[in-house]
């Protein structure tokens, strides 16, 4: 008689992994990429405001890098200077798999349009320098449209973060693959499967990571650190607004300056006239002569002064244009 095959046997041969065991395997896979297989890891976290992108990125750093928590304030960076410092620190201390989170990408000292362009240069250069230490770099940004083609190729993973409640965030962990035969990139979910005596088992695709708020020690330190930056951002914004106000006033002063020059040109218009013999003989105000006397004026402004002055002169009947003169 053959042994009866029971459901119990199937459960033994095909045990179903839980969401928690898959989380272990997933983070272990990332850890081994950095520490065993000697790869570096660049991941972009994006999503709407307050979705938990930054805390999600900090969670990844916290799990993957044992040195991240003690140096949290220097590893979560907002400016290019801090970024360079973080890389320098990793290089000096020879930290393998060191995590650096570039938070609020696009609102730091580099403008959003130029942000990825500039940062991709810095990151490419730094990757050459610290590449052998296999860093984990996490970009945190609100809009995926910030990412240009170069940066898209730089990011190996693009993680879409969203939240439906206050207890945890959801992350869609897409890997980005580039197709060398057709110019394009596509996304795919991470895949896990079991291989037993050469027979592959069920394929699991990870389509969502449920990640809770980090432990208080991490969360509190991150919030304090980010708040300091946000306060600075507020001060910078105030300064910027003050600067804009100043520029506006300067323009007003400048405009009144042009009026004064026009007044002067009208009073002494004979000093600025030239004669042209094209299509008869014409007398006109020469913008080059105006600039000669008022060297601060741009070419555009000298033409404006000429136009305004001619208008005034015609109105006052002080000079006749397009009139034959006796030379």
């Amino acid at each position, binding site marked *: 008689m053959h042994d009866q*095959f029971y459901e119990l046997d199937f459960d033994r041969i095909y045990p179903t992994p839980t969401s928690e065991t898959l989380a272990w395997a997933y983070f272990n896979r990332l850890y081994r990429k950095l520490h065993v297989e000697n790869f570096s890891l660049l991941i972009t976290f994006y999503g709407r405001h307050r979705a938990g992108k930054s805390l999600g990125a900090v969670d990844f750093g916290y799990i993957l890098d044992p040195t991240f928590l003690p140096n949290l304030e220097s590893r979560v960076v907002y400016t290019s200077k801090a970024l360079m410092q973080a890389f320098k620190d990793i290089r000096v201390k020879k930290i393998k798999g060191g995590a650096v989170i570039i938070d609020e990408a696009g609102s730091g000292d580099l403008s959003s349009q130029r942000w990825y362009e500039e940062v991709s240069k810095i990151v490419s250069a730094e990757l050459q320098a610290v590449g052998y230490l296999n860093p984990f770099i996490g970009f945190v940004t609100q809009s995926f449209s910030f990412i240009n083609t170069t940066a898209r190729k730089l990011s190996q993973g693009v993680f879409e973060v969203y939240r439906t409640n206050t207890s945890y965030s959801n992350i869609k962990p897409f890997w980005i693959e580039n197709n060398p035969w057709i110019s394009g990139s596509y996304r795919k979910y991470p895949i896990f499967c079991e291989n037993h005596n050469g027979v592959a088992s069920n394929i699991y*695709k990870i*389509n969502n990571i449920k990640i809770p708020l980090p432990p208080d020690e991490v969360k509190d330190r991150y919030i304090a650190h980010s708040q300091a930056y946000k306060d600075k951002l507020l001060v910078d914004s105030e300064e910027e607004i003050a600067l804009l106000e100043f520029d506006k006033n300067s323009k007003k002063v400048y405009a009144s300056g042009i009026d004064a020059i026009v007044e002067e040109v009208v009073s002494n218009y004979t000093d600025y006239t030239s004669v042209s013999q094209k299509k008869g003989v014409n007398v006109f105000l020469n913008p080059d002569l105006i600039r000669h006397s008022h060297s601060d004026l741009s070419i555009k402004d000298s033409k404006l002064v000429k136009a305004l002055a001619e208008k005034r002169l015609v109105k006052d009947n002080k000079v006749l244009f397009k009139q034959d003169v006796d030379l």
Partner: protein
Amino acid sequence: MDERTEQSGYQVQGSDILKKKIFDYVFHLCNLATTKETEIADYTYETGFVRGVKLAKSLMWKYTKPEIKETIKNIYSQLEYNISRIPEKLDEAQKKLEKQMLSDDASMQVLEILLVVMLYSSMSVEMKEIEVKDWQSVIGKARDDNPVRIFGNEINEKED
């Protein structure tokens, strides 16, 4: 950006078509198993269903784990043994009916096993959500130079 996921069906490999055909065939057998069976010919006791299960077993062999292969082999050898024990004194029609009954029973067992194999084989792809529940256990398990074993006692082969 040319975004396409693996679910989009943009690229279909030959092996994917084969897998689909195997799925279709096994479900066809399920249909046969629940409807009236037809005899193939006078000279054999095997019905279309019995032969179909044998063929499906061969198609699925590549995806079948050693323990299950062993069980399937046992079922068929047990069937042969049971057939050999049919009393000689029975007339031919009765013998054929007896053989059909035994082979149908064995084929049903094999088909049941094949269904489970198919659903847990690499042919089927399951979407899974992962969850971080306990920080210390995740950190402890993640920071290991050896692969984490998600399926219990087996070594994982992971791709991404």
